[in-house]
């Protein structure tokens, strides 16, 4: 970095000029925030930057990264998926029941993803075809998915003893555990589809100006169906990691994952009004939120303060996005 700037002073000046603009901070809130958090926490806690803790943080971040990517597709179209974490719970219970029935890991994994897709399909039909407001539709399916998970599991956690799940949680390449590798693969694919294919361009077009997109022959209905299916399917994938982490399929209400998935996307600089796609930003946003929780825990700050801290960071980020370049 420094050498490049040294050789090319005009570039350095340009960077300097950028830094003085508030829009620079607004565009890059997530990476700047992440770096700041790392500096602060590593100064306050010697454990924070140890390999063991970094590895643990990355594993912990995987679920949120995957949910944030799903949420990002939906938010790019100007929608929102409030059912995302309930869908994950529903997928986890689907996995648990299938596994309990002796279907084995792989079939159960497919069941989890299909369960997620099912909720995504309902969201898509309600919003794209039924023209129900996204907020109301997904609030409804949030409740439906939570209720179904409770009903089919009888409200009891299903303990899972699967060697494959154990490998999924504990396996790693270097400091990168399998969960974060899975999340990274999904992120790369998501980036590819969003920025290099017709589909991704149409997602951005529908979010940016639906009327214009439709006038150019794009089917907004199909695009909206697709993003809710993506969100549901990814919630199903996240369900696997959740079951692997907990060691059981619990019909618990994971509200924190819902709030954090939206928070990660906002931190990542995606406007809730749609039209501006980002994948790397939300991923960094998810890492930031995980680092924040991890750092506070290491410092012995009471659990009670963690939602407060997350809330403050998100509100700050939301304020900053007002200064993003149009």
């Amino acid at each position, binding site marked *: 970095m420094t050498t490049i700037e040294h050789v090319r002073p005009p570039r350095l000046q340009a960077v300097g000029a950028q830094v003085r603009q508030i829009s620079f901070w607004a565009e890059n809130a997530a990476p700047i925030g992440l770096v700041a958090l790392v500096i602060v926490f590593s100064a306050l806690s010697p454990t924070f930057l140890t390999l063991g803790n970094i590895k643990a943080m990355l594993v912990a971040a995987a679920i949120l990264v995957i949910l944030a990517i799903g949420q990002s597709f939906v938010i790019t179209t100007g929608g929102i998926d409030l059912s995302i974490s309930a869908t994950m719970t529903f997928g986890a219970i689907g996995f648990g029941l299938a596994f309990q029935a002796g279907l084995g890991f792989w079939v159960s994994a497919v069941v989890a993803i299909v369960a997620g897709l099912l909720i995504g399909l309902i969201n898509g039909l309600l919003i794209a075809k039924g023209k129900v407001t996204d907020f109301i539709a997904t609030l409804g399916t949030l409740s439906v998915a939570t209720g179904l998970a409770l009903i089919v599991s009888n409200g009891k956690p299903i303990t899972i003893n699967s060697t494959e799940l154990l490998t999924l949680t504990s396996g790693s390449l270097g400091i990168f555990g399998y969960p974060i590798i899975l999340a990274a693969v999904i992120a790369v694919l998501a980036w590819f589809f969003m920025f290099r294919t017709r589909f991704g361009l149409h997602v*951005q077009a529908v979010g940016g100006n639906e009327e*214009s997109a439709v*006038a150019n022959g794009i089917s907004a209905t199909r695009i909206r169906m697709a993003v809710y299916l993506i969100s549901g399917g990814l919630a199903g994938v996240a369900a696997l990691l959740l079951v692997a982490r907990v060691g059981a399929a619990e019909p618990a209400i994971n509200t924190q994952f819902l709030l954090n998935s939206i928070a990660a996307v906002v931190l990542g600089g995606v406007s809730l009004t749609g039209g501006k796609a980002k994948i790397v930003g939300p991923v960094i946003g998810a890492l930031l939120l995980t680092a924040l929780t991890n750092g506070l825990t290491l410092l012995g700050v009471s659990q009670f303060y963690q939602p407060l801290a997350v809330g403050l960071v998100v509100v700050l980020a939301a304020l900053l996005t007002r200064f993003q370049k149009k």
Partner: protein
Amino acid sequence: MTTPDQYNERPSVAPHTGTTATRDFILQATGITKSFGGVHALKGASMTMRRGEITALIGDNGAGKSTMVRCLSGIHRPDSGEILLDGKPVTFENPNAAIQQGIETVQQNLALVEDLTVWQNFFLGREKTHGFGPFRTLDRKLMKQTAADLLKNLAVNVPPVTSKVRRLSGGQRQAVAIARAAGWGSQIVIMDEPTAALGVQETARVEGVIETLRESGVAVLLISHNFDQVMRLSDHVWVMRAGMAVAERRSAETSGDELVALITGAKAA
């Protein structure tokens, strides 16, 4: 609607002037109605377009020109009425259906997505790709190059194809929308007030594009408030008033004064 009107009274056939044979019409719209709630934007309007001609559609604000355009381009579905393309009845379920049938349109609102770049807007809905299956990628290089080439002919102050449309001037936006509609080798190009936001030089270029389209056999429907332009470019003129097409003239056989009188209703069709 006080003046009885020779064209709109014919129920089943689209109107035509003089001796023109039906097969010479590329498009015939008959008895088109369209209401928005209590607003009757089209009350049974009929009009035609001939092959290889520039047809002008004129009328006061609110006469229903844009609504007619939006019916012909698949954005609205008429409440009733018939559209014949090449003599065959067509219904456009959506804009894509009209595009598939070779009808390109510059909508009055331009139909651009501000957060996308010029080249992305240019190819919106018909992107070029390479590769196979789900990993078919956008051919960005080809699209940028093509968009730049087609824009060069049109815009006086050519915007970079990688800049967002949000950053473009009104004239540049209009150039993007027009170059886009003209670039696909379609059989009909509809332009709803294409030179409204343009300066003298840019207007001249757009008129050049319209004439080039006609030379290459494309039928153009031009909506314009500029009588000089209409008289200069068009072969045929349709006049709309209060949701009806009330008169038609060969451009060579009319005058700006007569058109004004037809628009206001001072002169009966």
